[in-house]
């Protein structure tokens, strides 16, 4: 039985797995699988977006107060960094499709560096929140939450400011974790890309890692306005 299957594979690409007819089918199956995974990811983040929407609509003043304390500049810069990294990721896939090994490696390195830049800026932001006692609850022993650094708008209750920071850290923390996974994934891809594994016939690992990377970018595209921007115009009205 194995022999009869092997017949059709005599001249095929070494990366072709035995359970696929040809490279095309293998590529489409891989891409479909990644999309199914991304659907579960959308549902996973969807739950947190739902929690955010609910509490924001219930406590708009508290959420605006807490949101205004975040650094808009750092948030906006990070949005730019992530968009740029998605762009270089797209170019990495493009280079793989054309078989330009050097460009592919350069683009992957740039993507990883931009991802690390994002995480670095995020760490600076987290540290600022730590200094201002904005780590919610008692996450840090001996360093409890204290909203006295936050300028409260009229009608904002401190425990709801804390609720914002729970949601902020849950969502950006989960996003950062996805970034860390993404950077690790791309490092593996980079290793194989440098060894010349990917070319015009076989580059699905690059393509689906790219899908994951772009997905993480999309999550941030929503997180940025929701967490940093909404209610910003109320800052002066307080």
């Amino acid at each position, binding site marked *: 039985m194995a022999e009869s299957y092997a017949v059709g594979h005599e001249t095929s690409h070494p990366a072709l797995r035995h359970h696929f007819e040809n490279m*095309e089918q293998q*590529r*489409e199956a891989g*891409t*479909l699988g990644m*999309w*199914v995974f*991304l*659907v579960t990811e*959308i*549902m996973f983040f*969807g*739950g947190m977006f*739902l929690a955010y*929407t*609910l509490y924001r*609509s219930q406590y708009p003043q508290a959420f605006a107060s807490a949101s205004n304390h975040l650094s*808009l500049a750092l948030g*906006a810069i990070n*949005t*730019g960094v992530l*968009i*740029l990294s*998605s*762009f270089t*990721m*797209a*170019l990495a896939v*493009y280079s793989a*499709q*054309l078989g330009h090994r050097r460009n592919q490696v350069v683009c992957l390195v740039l993507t990883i560096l931009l991802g690390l830049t994002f995480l670095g800026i995020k760490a600076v932001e987290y540290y600022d929140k730590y200094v201002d006692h904005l780590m919610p609850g008692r996450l840090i022993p001996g360093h409890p939450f204290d909203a006295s650094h936050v300028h409260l708008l009229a009608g904002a209750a401190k425990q709801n400011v804390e609720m914002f920071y729970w949601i902020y850290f849950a969502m950006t923390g989960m996003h950062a974790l996805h970034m860390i996974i993404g950077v690790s994934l791309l490092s593996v891809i980079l290793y194989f890309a440098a060894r010349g594994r990917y070319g015009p016939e076989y580059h699905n690992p690059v*393509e689906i890692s*790219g*899908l994951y990377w*772009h*997905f993480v*970018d*999309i999550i941030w*595209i*929503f997180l*940025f*306005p*929701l967490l940093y*921007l*909404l*209610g*910003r*115009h109320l800052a002066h*009205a307080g």
Partner: protein
Amino acid sequence: MSEHIVSVKVYITICLALMTGTALTVWAGLRDFPWPLNVIIALTIAVIKATLVVLYFMHVRYSSRLIWVVFASALFWLGILFALTFSDYWTRGWLPIS
């Protein structure tokens, strides 16, 4: 269905559009529009940016119908999640508790 290779020009255009969208949303976010325009503007720009990423960076525009269906199913289930939850929260207090 063979693979469609998107040109670098398209990628550059999309990247610039995403950057412009980011600048635009920051600018609009700092202005005091009548409620709820600020929210609507921010979300509209975010949805447009996400759509561009999905269609061009993630190649959905050039992908098979199957990928479209899978992606649409995510949005559909997300819609159920939000619709059913808010049908509860929004209608609380409509009827007096006896």
